[in-house]
């Protein structure tokens, strides 16, 4: 592995605990996570359910407010930003231009056509609608999504079809950092192969990826480095540590 380049993302001692006021509880989710992600490489997050893998991705995307640690992102202008602390306007800007997140489940309005959902990130960047549609159609074909489905809402799609729509939306905008939460979980073997091909292409294009996979063979094939997370120790112990 050639890591002479600087990492695009450096996670240092990331921790996330949820404080539930109503129940008077603190729920630990991620604890002391350290990892690097490099351009053109894929870092895989592995570990059992409850190890806080998704919580790491959500912290980087700032859907969760990190409790501790630093999430250092290097922008295309070579400025280092701590995503844990950065101003919200800056986070929104980075989401628009540099960081994309493919979540486990597709969240979309039931009245929106599939192609429009996928085109969203391009439109938000100010791309012309017809130009955006060309790119969208290319991506959807590459993912084996039947053409007949492009102009209808994904509300009635199967799990695997929805997942491809979600993935397509993350890929079209060619982000510099792509966060993937089990991108192939509900895909059949043929489509999984297609997606693997797309991910390999992205690597060749220099996209940095941080991904959660459950199938060891995918980690084997795609990951340049692997980070294993363990479920955090019980809250009292963590609290003692921070005290």
């Amino acid at each position, binding site marked *: 592995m050639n890591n002479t380049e600087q990492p695009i993302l450096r996670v240092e001692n990331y921790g996330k605990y949820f404080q539930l006021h109503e129940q008077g509880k603190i729920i630990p989710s991620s604890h002391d996570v350290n990892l690097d992600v490099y351009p053109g490489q894929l870092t895989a997050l592995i570990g059992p359910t409850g190890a806080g893998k998704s919580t790491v991705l959500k912290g980087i995307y700032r859907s969760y407010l990190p409790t501790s640690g630093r999430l250092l992102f290097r922008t295309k202008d070579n400025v280092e930003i701590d995503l844990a602390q950065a101003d919200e*306007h800056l986070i*929104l800007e980075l989401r628009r231009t540099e960081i994309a997140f493919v979540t486990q489940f597709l969240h979309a309005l039931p009245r929106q056509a599939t192609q429009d959902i996928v085109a969203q990130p391009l439109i938000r960047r100010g791309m012309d609608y017809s130009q955006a549609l060309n790119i969208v159609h290319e991506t959807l074909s590459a993912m084996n999504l039947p053409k007949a489905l492009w102009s209808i809402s994904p509300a009635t799609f199967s799990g695997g079809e929805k997942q491809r729509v979600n993935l397509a939306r993350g890929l079209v905008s060619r982000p510099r950092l792509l966060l993937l939460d089990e991108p192939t979980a509900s895909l059949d073997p043929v489509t999984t192969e297609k997606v693997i091909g797309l991910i390999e292409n992205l690597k060749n294009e220099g996209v940095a990826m941080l991904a959660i996979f459950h199938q060891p063979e995918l980690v084997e094939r795609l990951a340049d480095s692997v980070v294993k997370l363990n479920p955090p120790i019980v809250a009292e112990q963590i609290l003692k540590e921070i005290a």
Partner: protein
Amino acid sequence: MDKVLEVNNLSKVYGQGCAACFELTGPEHDTNICPKCGSVVAAHNVSFDLYKGEILGIMGESGSGKSTAVKCLYFDQKPTSGRASFFNDEKQYDLFNMNAAHQRHLMNHKFGMVYQNPHLGLNFDISAGGNIAERLLMSEVDHYGEIRKRATDLLKRTEVLAERMDELPKNFSGGMQQRVQIAKALAINPPLLFLDEVTTGLDLSVQAAILDLILEIQQENQTAMIVVTHDLGVIRLLAGRTLVMKYGRIIENGLTDQILEDPQHAYTQRLVASAL
């Protein structure tokens, strides 16, 4: 990124007010009524900013002060203290320190407001087209043909049948009245738009259409908007950032997805947990 609005420490007290008002009210006292003098602290130390093309959500239950904040910015109410600056065409306007004529000029030329109640935003004695014409006239568009054309375009844009533009708003359904109100607010293509509970009380399908329209307008015109609502769904759909208010205070603010997925404050957690 261009800043459109900056609000600093906006406060509004209804009533006499006393030295203890701010100290004895707020979420930690579970009231916005001052126990000493009985004044209502509708908003205290509300600060935020807004950028071009951004939609900011202000969320809270009735009486939280969310509408008061917007009404002060639109000059419907006079704030007790605080500062607000509006930025447009390289100029900065100090909203609370200008005379009424200047304020009216901004309302007519730069701001749009859509109220929950169409009676507040529309003149019910004149036609839908007339309502739009009124606003265009106030912003010095006075050619009849031009006004007629703009009104037709706007009503078409907001999906009100152009054939009905000469009808009175009272003949329209609630959703249609809301569309006319939006068309009127948009007539001058304002860089700043206030939306106060605009979908509350409408049928779900009508709500969806209005919200889609608002999103399209934001994308087309890069209009900066403040959306006041108690509806988590509206916030989720429209707002990039959100403020949560309770008893006149901002108790939490952040990216909308973070507020909804990882709320920090006990009240917000309860609010999000009660979503349908």
